[in-house]
């Protein structure tokens, strides 16, 4: 093996190592969770915009009563709402960007914002 060969092999190993760092590292984590927020709309206007990493309990007044929004463990949910069918509560914990819970009677919309690619909310054929 000549010295040139050695140099080539070392450079090749560095390139391979670098490719692992570059493409198998975890650059996604941290950036998306840090910027993730939940937005609460009441009657079409923004009522609050809160970070998901801080636990909170928010009471949103509306025409039908009070909708309680809970934020815990990096997710938000509609804990209680005056609607008779519980549709808002049934949306469960909202964690990913684009997740949404709506209370029509109380005109409240809870939505997770974020940089992440939004998944489809419905597909029709």
């Amino acid at each position, binding site marked *: *093996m*000549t*010295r*040139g*060969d050695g*140099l*080539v*092999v070392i450079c*090749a*190993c560095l*390139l*391979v190592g670098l*490719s*692992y760092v570059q*493409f*198998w590292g975890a650059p996604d984590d941290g950036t998306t969770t840090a910027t993730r927020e939940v937005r609460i709309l009441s009657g079409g206007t923004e009522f609050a915009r809160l970070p998901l990493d801080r636990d909170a309990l928010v009471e949103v007044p509306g025409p039908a009563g009070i909708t309680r929004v809970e934020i815990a463990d990096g997710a938000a949910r509609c804990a209680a709402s005056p609607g008779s069918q519980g549709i808002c509560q049934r949306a469960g914990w909202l964690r990913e960007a684009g997740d949404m819970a709506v209370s029509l009677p109380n005109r409240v919309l809870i939505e997770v914002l974020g940089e992440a690619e939004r998944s489809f909310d419905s597909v029709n054929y």
Partner: protein
Amino acid sequence: MLLSTTREDHLIAWLAALAIAIHVLEAALPSPIPGVKPGLANVITVLALLLYGWRVAVWVSLLRVLAGSLLVGSFLSPTFLLSLTGALASLAALGLATAVAGRHLSALGLCVLAALAHMLGQFLVAYTLIIPHPALLKLLPVLLTAALLFGLASGTIARMMYPQRPPAAP
């Protein structure tokens, strides 16, 4: 009318035939990951470069891609495109390497260079034309590792067959 052939034509034909045989044999081997194969035909290209210069290596390599794809049945398919860009990339790397540092490199270094260039060229085309999805990038480290290992293997073989350094003026 009889085609007149030179000695070099025969040489290229012989080397290309050898490379095609290896190419076809390798196509029969199962591959664990798409894109990973030993690339032993690389040995012939590098030996052609060392013994007869870059021009002959280009002929041998491109003839191997063309005739090999005709025999395997992948002519003008995406596989053929990948094979061709890989061959062109490795030829470019070999030409550059011999022009810049030809006297410092033996068959081993040249084979490693060619294997990595082959893989990178192929990957670039696969990523831009065939599967432009970020998930494909996750495969690149694995592919490069395979290219390095197989480059070392084919380089060792080529070095056993031709232990000297290339002539001063290729």
